[in-house]
């Protein structure tokens, strides 16, 4: 069982963010897995920054490395087979990768907390909800059993679980999926973390419950001012919550920008492909979807050039030969495409958005 709080530990949360840096800085992070089949480049050069009160949406298909990135930040990847091949993660100016396991224990749950996709398996079935909710508080805050129980009830009320005094004694199987995800959120927020990482928090839930959970996360963020990293494959969810969006493909970001930039002036063919692939809600006539051809590449034998080149309808020779570097198409908005700066390329090929449509209608 967990150790009591170390009194000599300086709360990272209370320390100011050093001048000129951000709350969380991920800098060219590389996490490779060494397997029998070869080296899997699960995360291959991810960079972003995050400040309090912000929400970063991480979008990508399965296997694009979006979950591994956040697990690496949390120090939850087994090494070996995993190995950090470069880069850094700094939280309030302090490198998380350089921390000892003991130090990371203070960070996890206390400074950076995580919600997982599957609420059915991420709670321990043999402990009561109250005990699991209070575990972090007893560990990080040194609460007594009684204090932890009282706070657990408060937390359950906060996330909208009725009859919290009774429910705190219940076991996870007595809760529905949506309620378990509420418990997970309560647990993640128990120690008032700076950063909440939500890994597909609503994928296993029905839409009406998804709407409840997203509203809950938004209102909690308004109250606590924490930052959120929302990992999802659902562009609808990111459109709803994200301030910034990172689009990932085959282990690295292909485009990064504000939600506005990604949805209304996307500049990478993969982002276009994603936007074109989702069925639109239309009023009168249905257009057939434009899927992305082919399948995502294997991360063991990644293509030599641009990882998206084999599926990209605009790929030319250079795309198969040379990896594109980030090209800035706006302040803080970069795209990894050789043709992003070619005149007319974006204008000619980007999908129409509701903004371009209404602009055309006004002409």
């Amino acid at each position, binding site marked *: 069982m967990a150790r009591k709080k170390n009194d000599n530990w300086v709360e990272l949360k209370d320390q100011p963010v050093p001048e000129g840096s951000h709350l969380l800085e991920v800098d060219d992070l590389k996490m490779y897995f060494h397997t029998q089949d070869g080296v899997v480049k699960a995360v291959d050069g991810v960079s972003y920054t995050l400040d309090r009160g912000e929400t970063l949406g991480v979008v990508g298909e399965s296997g694009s490395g979006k979950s591994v990135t956040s697990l690496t930040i949390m120090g939850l990847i087994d090494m070996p087979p995993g190995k950090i091949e470069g880069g850094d993660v700094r939280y309030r100016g302090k490198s998380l990768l350089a921390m000892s396991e003991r130090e990371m224990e203070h960070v996890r749950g206390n400074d950076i907390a995580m919600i997982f996709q599957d609420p059915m398996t991420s709670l321990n079935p043999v402990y009561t909800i109250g005990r699991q909710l209070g575990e972090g508080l007893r560990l990080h805050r040194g609460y007594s059993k009684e204090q932890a129980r009282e706070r657990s009830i408060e937390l359950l009320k906060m996330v909208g679980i009725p009859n919290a005094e009774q429910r705190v004694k219940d076991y996870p199987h007595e809760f529905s999926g949506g309620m378990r995800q509420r418990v997970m959120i309560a647990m993640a927020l128990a120690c008032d973390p700076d950063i909440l990482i939500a890994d597909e928090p609503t994928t296993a839930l029905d839409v*009406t419950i998804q*709407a409840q959970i997203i509203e809950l996360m938004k209102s909690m963020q308004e109250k606590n001012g924490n930052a959120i990293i929302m990992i999802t494959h*659902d562009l*609808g969810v990111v*459109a709803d919550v994200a301030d910034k969006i990172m689009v990932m493909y085959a282990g690295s970001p292909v485009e990064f920008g504000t939600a506005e930039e990604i949805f209304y002036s996307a500049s990478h063919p993969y982002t276009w492909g*994603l936007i*074109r692939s989702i069925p639109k*809600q*239309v009023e009168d006539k249905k257009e057939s979807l434009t899927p992305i051809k082919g399948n995502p590449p294997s991360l063991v034998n990644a293509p030599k050039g641009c990882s998206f080149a084999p599926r990209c309808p605009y790929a030319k020779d250079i795309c198969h030969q040379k990896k594109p570097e980030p090209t800035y198409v706006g302040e803080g908005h970069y795209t990894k495409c050789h043709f992003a700066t070619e005149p007319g390329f974006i204008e000619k090929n980007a999908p129409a958005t509701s903004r371009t449509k209404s602009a055309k209608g006004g002409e």
Partner: protein
Amino acid sequence: MTETKRTGEPLLHVEHLTKEFPVEAGVFASRMNKKRVHAVEDVSFDIYPGETFGLVGESGCGKSTTGRTIMRLTNPTAGKVIFDGKDVAKMNKRELKEMRRNMQFIFQDPYASLNPRMTIGEIVSEPLQIHGVMKDQKERIEYVRSLLDIVGLNPEHINRYPHEFSGGQRQRVGIARAFALKPKLIICDEPVSALDVSIQAQVLNLLSDLQKEYGTAYLFIAHDLSVVQHISDRVAVMYLGHMMEDSDWKTLYAEPHHPYTQALLSAVPIPDPDVQHARKRIILSGDVPSPIDPPAGCPFHERCPIAKEQCSKGEMPELREVKPGHFCACHFAAPNPIKGSSVEL
């Protein structure tokens, strides 16, 4: 497109279909324990040749059970399923086999629905063997190769095993198998929900292309409202085993008459920040009630923002025709019944 198709005899006519499961399994369970899971309650609808009928609802609403009962993978507790003029519920084994030549199934999980020990060629030709079509082996192999080609797989891969394929490719194998006998109706149970968006679009396009080519009707079961809207001619919404609303897709999405449909539509996040931030959402409180002990009256009344006293009493409101071809089971059926918010398209 929608209106013109619905003429003549329906291909599938489902009338008052009900399916209950005993809560406990075992020989004496039904005598000892009177509790039942009311999975499907009094569901009626028609599917016409060549159309796509979408069935949506949250998990546990009985949409998959409806599909399975129609094909008689489970026996209905009550009700009629008339397929091609014959009652499926009354068929004997031989008639069932014959019926299944014309009614096939595409499953949700492309990993679990293909036998890992069979090559994809064997998987796709199995329905042909079972029904004794194309006895000549050479002809059969040629046909399977052409099927693989049609669904976008390399015919050269006919001797490969399922594990050599990705999820989207496996789903294509499942589709080739379902189309092998050129059935009149295919029940697609969440065929794209296990796939990534870019692959999902490929499979949806494939399904529409095959429908255009062969004139197959689909019963398309899914929880994703935008996918269902995209593919369906007609859409029905289920909740707790009951049919709540049934209409052509255009009306259902533009002018839902049932508060549940309206809430469901408003809960789907739209991938367009301008639109998403501008619209007002209806957030339903609570969870779907247990189908073991469903509430009296309308099953939705506990979560319904416009429920009145009469909703919690008596029987479930009848599925009545509120407009020609538009059915809704609500006492207060009206266009966008929950006021103060609208479902923006």
